[in-house]
């Protein structure tokens, strides 16, 4: 709430020309990127034992920082609640919102945001106790549902129950931790959120094995990093950094083989990594090595996935729609040329 007030005040007090164009200049002047993240979702953005932020969303910010400032560590993180996140971005408190945020028309337009490419195709699901015997979302009539206030989940669940002629009682918390604690304490029959979020939060429950996810997915939740509307130069950089990570996976460029690929790769690889005559740096306003640094920071899109979300992580998520288009998914980088 405090953050919200300071951010609102920033909008009120800021002088003319504020936070519109010139995000890049601001970043260069201050020497780091301000990255808005969650208040702690394992796999996406969560402080580790040493107190450093880690996760899939965090690595997106690190890749951008590597591309822009040649230093993946030049990022400062601002944990934001659902309610605070958009105001913090609008007011310039953060430069990029990499925070499991669903891209919607309303947010893209009325909230004055621009969304970079989708980094995670998610959908909303339900979690219940195995002992409840519920196996399908159609059996949820009359249940109590714990949900995060100010999320798309809150709206989807209302639509879903109305559409299926079912009733429910919502219990709405602003903080994800409190939603979890209340569900875990038995306040609700059902916990609803994005499937990835459910998987992440199940890890920190008292007894994760007691809970099961229902098979239904009731919505489309394309999660994408967001920046302020109106600063096209900065928007381009974030957009193409994400594409560069995906393109690197398409082309087989990894953090390990990047030097070798830069020397010997195909023309597409050479263009991506800026080793050929036709570098892409000038077009995005950076030097030709921008994509190399972004990829070297944490690996390509697939590597980020495997490290934070994939089968070898506690979350054990299947890539599903997030596979490359060549592997049956829908992830696809726009041509980098």
């Amino acid at each position, binding site marked *: *709430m405090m953050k*919200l*007030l300071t*951010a*609102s005040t920033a*909008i*009120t*007090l*800021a*002088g*003319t020309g*504020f*936070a*519109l164009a010139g995000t890049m200049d601001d970043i260069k002047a201050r020497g780091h990127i301000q990255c808005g993240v969650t208040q702690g979702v394992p796999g996406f953005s969560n402080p580790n034992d040493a107190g450093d932020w880690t996760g899939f969303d965090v690595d997106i910010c690190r890749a951008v920082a590597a591309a822009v400032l040649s230093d993946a560590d030049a990022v400062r993180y601002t944990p934001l609640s*659902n*309610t605070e*996140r*958009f*105001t913090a971005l*609008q007011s310039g408190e953060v430069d990029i919102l990499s925070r499991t945020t669903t891209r919607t028309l*309303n*947010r893209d*337009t*009325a*909230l*004055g945001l621009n969304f970079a490419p989708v980094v995670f195709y998610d959908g909303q699901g339900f979690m219940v106790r195995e002992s*409840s015997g519920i196996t399908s979302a159609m059996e949820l*009539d*009359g*249940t*109590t549902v714990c949900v995060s*206030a*100010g*999320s798309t989940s*809150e*709206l989807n669940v*209302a*639509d879903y129950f*109305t559409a299926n002629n079912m009733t*429910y*009682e*919502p*219990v*709405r*918390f*602003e*903080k994800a931790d*409190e939603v979890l*604690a*209340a569900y875990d*304490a*038995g*306040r609700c*029959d059902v916990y609803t959120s994005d499937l990835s979020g459910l998987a992440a939060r199940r890890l920190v429950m008292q007894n994760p094995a007691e809970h099961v996810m229902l098979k239904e997915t009731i919505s489309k939740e394309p999660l994408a990093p967001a920046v*302020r*509307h*109106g600063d096209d130069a900065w928007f381009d950089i974030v957009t193409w950094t994400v594409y560069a990570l995906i393109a690197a996976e398409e082309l087989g460029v990894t953090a390990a083989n990047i030097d070798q690929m830069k020397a010997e790769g195909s023309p597409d690889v050479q263009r991506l990594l800026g080793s050929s005559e036709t570098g892409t740096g000038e077009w995005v306003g950076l030097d030709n090595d921008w994509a190399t640094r972004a990829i070297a920071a944490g690996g390509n899109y697939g590597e980020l996935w495997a490290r934070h979300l994939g089968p070898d992580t506690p979350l054990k998520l299947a890539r599903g729609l997030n596979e490359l288009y060549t592997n049956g998914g829908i992830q696809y980088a726009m041509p980098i040329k």
Partner: protein
Amino acid sequence: MTAPVLPPRQIFWTRRRVKSLVVQAVFLGGLAWLFYFLFANTTANLQRQGIASGFGFLSQRAGFDVSLSFLPFTSDSSYGRAFWVAVVNALVLSALGIVLATVLGFGLGLARVSKNWLIARLATVYIEIFRNIPLLLQLFFWYFAILRQLPGPKESLVLADLVILNNRGLYMPRPQVDQSGWVIMVCFAAGLCMALVMTLRARQQRLKTGHGPKCWFWWPIGLFALPLTAYVLSGASLSFVIPELRGFNYRGGMLMLPEMLAALLGLGFYISAAIGEIVRSGIQGVDRGQVEAASALGLGRRDIMRLVVLPQAMRIIIPPLATQYLSLAKNTSLAAAIAFPEIISIVAGTTLTQTGQALEAITLAMLFYMSVSLSIAAVMNFLNYRVLRHGN
């Protein structure tokens, strides 16, 4: 010896009256300019960033549900309706909290000055515990204490098949009358008015002459006999909707949500500790001679407290009591943390995020708290004025 020094002739603009007027005018002008600047600058910034502004969103469909609403509300209702739902919820919580805190607080205050060692010490311990722990922590304590201790719906604690307690709330039968129920309500209201009028008249007469007619019997007549007669004569049928377990939860009946219960207990206990101290200081602030004089007149201990000490203590008690009521009303905002659907949760939370109109939502929330605070202050000032003027 020096000649007396005459004060120098004052120039027009150094005279105190003029000077203070000028200073005030400049200050007011500056303030007005500041507000204008804030408003104009905000509007310009929002417009340039392409962020929607204005209160038009209040008529849009809300699209979310709330767990507790005294007004009809569905996800098809508007954001404006959601605002009023939040207002009513916050007011109900404040009102119940004020009643609980006042009753507990006066009891505590009296207990603190009690001659009984045990009672006085217990009251002290209570006050020191509840007033020294932050309210937010207390709210979490009550909420999770309720949730963790109580069983799920299927293993509910059931009292005589009527009152059901589980971690989804406290269920009670809901009285229901058929169409002619309004007759009973009208009789009840009429009975209440009658009893009030008779009591006030008796009081006036007593103040004037020293003797007033007995009037206590008007209360049972007005509140019970009259509506009951109406009930029997009108042939209305009164029934109770009894909560029953259907599917996952109990349905029907009256439901007190755990969020409501925890918020009420947290706020009530916290503020009652402060009120207890205010009442104690009020009682101890009454001159010792008053008590001695009263007992010299042969009044008993109860009568001394009731007729002599408390009426005078009220003069000391009411102003700080008003502060506590204000604080309770504003502290209802903390109940958002335990999912109680009030202003912060619905307006400055969901509405703000779903519409993205932070400034408007925060403005609405601020307007609400300011109106409530000013209203409470007005009522308490009026009470204070009465106490100072009339002594009760």
